[in-house]
């Protein structure tokens, strides 16, 4: 039985707790938040034995095996470090840390102490993402991807989070080195980082403020980002947009032979055959094939739903479950560390390219709710 603790009792913590409840052989033994009331509310709702306001007290008294860090990202490194030093495995919400240097230190410390860690890039473990990975490993692309396109749409027009962020000049997201981008883009970046290498990685980024934000007088937040990444072998485009409609969560992979489109919103995986048809057949046969694929995807999704295997947070449940199994069976963690590091490195380069300078962490942010 794994003893689990959650540090940071905000909205994301609830999502973790909901999924942990369905994973066998584990139990949430303690929660912690700098804000006592927030710790108390989670403890009470989940019927958790202990609640703390100090991480060290939690580690000393509850002695968890695994700690989920769901605080604002500014505190991930410092909390992660003391948890590792106390001998705990770590599941850290995205973004992993606020810099590549911090990410390296945590991973090195985990390796030195023979502990495991992972990051909440759960979008990499949805049904569609898992199917895509299987097709790639089976060689459908005809080799490693030559080019990738990752789209990450984000709506500022609705949603409590966006309203809270735009309405609060002191919101913790504003204090991140990369601001809103840092808190959101790692899902989209990690999808391409999975297929890149570290050799000669070049990142070119441009970011700007949308007309919507300008119209409401916003002067800090950058909500439009375009990135080109080149690792000497493959290229990738990354698009983050608050204005683009439809608001896509999509990955396109192009190999030497075929391509794939993975749509996270629709949970579809569409094969793009590289085959060329003669004359008008090129206009007749491929659309027919795509229609069949979309119907197949829809039926497959319905089948999974009927079997109660199509949960909204499937990726999170899958990742947490896989991480716990890796601990119990002493196997590699589900997300390779070099991918975590590559993602943080690309993000650092994006923010330095945009000249988004690090900001002083908010003193109250440590261990506060996410």
């Amino acid at each position, binding site marked *: 039985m794994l003893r689990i603790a959650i540090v940071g009792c905000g909205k994301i913590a609830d999502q973790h707790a909901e999924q942990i409840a369905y994973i066998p052989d584990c139990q949430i033994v303690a929660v912690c938040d700098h804000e006592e009331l*927030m710790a108390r*509310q989670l403890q009470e709702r989940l019927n958790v034995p202990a609640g703390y306001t100090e991480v060290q007290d939690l580690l000393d008294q509850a002695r968890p095996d695994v700690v989920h860090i769901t605080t604002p990202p500014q505190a991930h490194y410092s909390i992660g470090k003391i948890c590792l030093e106390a001998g705990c495995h770590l599941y850290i919400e995205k973004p992993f840390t606020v810099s590549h240097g911090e990410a390296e230190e945590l991973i090195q410390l985990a390796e030195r102490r023979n502990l495991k860690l992972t990051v909440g890039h759960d979008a990499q473990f949805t049904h569609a993402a898992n199917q895509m990975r299987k097709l790639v490993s089976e060689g459908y692309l005809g080799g490693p991807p030559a080019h990738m396109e990752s789209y990450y749409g984000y709506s500022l027009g609705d949603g409590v989070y966006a309203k809270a962020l735009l309405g609060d000049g002191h919101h913790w997201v504003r204090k991140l080195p990369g601001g809103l981008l840092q808190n959101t883009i790692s899902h989209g970046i990690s999808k391409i980082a999975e297929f890149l290498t570290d050799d000669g990685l070049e990142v070119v980024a441009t970011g700007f403020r949308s007309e919507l934000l300008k119209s409401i007088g916003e002067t800090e937040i950058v909500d439009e980002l375009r990135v080109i990444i080149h690792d000497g072998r493959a290229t990738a485009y990354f698009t983050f947009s608050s204005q683009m409609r439809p608001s896509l969560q999509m990955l396109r992979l192009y190999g030497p032979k075929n391509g794939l489109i993975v749509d996270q919103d629709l949970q579809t995986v569409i094969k793009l055959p590289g085959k060329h048809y003669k004359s008008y057949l090129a206009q007749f046969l491929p659309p027919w094939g795509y229609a069949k694929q979309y119907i197949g995807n829809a039926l497959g999704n319905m089948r999974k739903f009927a079997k*109660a295997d199509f949960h909204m947070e499937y990726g999170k449940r899958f990742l947490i479950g896989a991480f716990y199994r890796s601990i119990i069976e002493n196997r590699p963690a589900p997300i390779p560390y070099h991918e975590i590091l590559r993602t943080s490195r690309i993000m650092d380069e994006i923010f330095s390219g945009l000249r988004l300078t690090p900001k002083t962490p908010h003193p109250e942010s440590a261990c506060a709710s996410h």
Partner: protein
Amino acid sequence: MNVLTSRLPEKMTQSDLIIGADDPILITGSNGFIGSRVVNTLLRSGFTNLRCFVRPSSNLADLDAILKTANGARVEVVPGNLLSRDDCQKAAKDVAVIFHLAAAGDKSFPGSFMNCVVTTRNLLDAAVQVACLRRFVNVGSFAVYSNWNISRGGLLDESCELEHHLVERGEAYAFAKLKQDELVVEYARKHGIPYAIVRPGAVYGPGTRQVTGRVGIDTFGIFLHLGGSNQIPFTYVDNCARAIVLAGIKPGVEGEVFNIVDDDLPRSRQFLRSYKSHGKRFRSIYVPYPLFYGFCWAWEKYSKWSQGQLAPVFNRRRCATYWKGNRYSNQKLKDRLGWKPEVSYSEGLRRYLEFVRKKG
């Protein structure tokens, strides 16, 4: 004080009130649907020293319109965030009464809790430092009651049991409001803060177009009329504001809870018919309570079986709370605060539907 007594509808003498006309009053959430009416009621009642706490990003159009009519009164608009202890200290400094209306709904439990309970704690901590505080009026929610053990049509009033299964009901906001009430009571016990809690029913009036969920829901693309012949615990926004104000200024009600509902409460069917005829037309389907209760039971079971593939948003307890049907009383409000609804249901409905019509 003469001005004050002449403007309040009831005959009051100075001894009828716990504060003077010039004593400072803090209103949080003062630019909200109810908060702005509380400010208006206070001004109309002759109170001349108001501090209106607003979020920095708020649209102040409604409040500004009211403040334009504040002839001679000192009204300070204080932008701030109740999550900031400093902002709370500044807001509460030297006030005689606090009307705490600020609350931001959030679908998540932590979000609602943060916006209702943590903010209230900060305000209460600030209030503890205020030696001259005479009353802390906490504006709660009607949804904190449980009617699980009350039969259909039974009376639901201030003496009824509070809901202890709000997590099971899946109601983040109601959970937070209940915890907020509990916190106020805890501070009263520990620090002697004089308080009153008010729990408005379904507040309606110009400023909102929403049809209360007690009438029905439009979750499935068509409006499901679930209220049937249930009485709806309406309170017209101005009547509600007046009750809140009275809870803050009348003596002898420390530690009391007041439910706010009007007289002549309509049936759900009657209200819906009026809304569609004189407000906005839309299609609706009547679903009898036993049928919807069965649906909620099945949904709840499926949610459990499927390990949360569908969240248990429809469940039996929630169904009972909103659509089982109860009777409501405002007797305590009348007896202890001398409140009576100034705006009748028919007049309130006319004003409300005129607003709905204009806004489309």
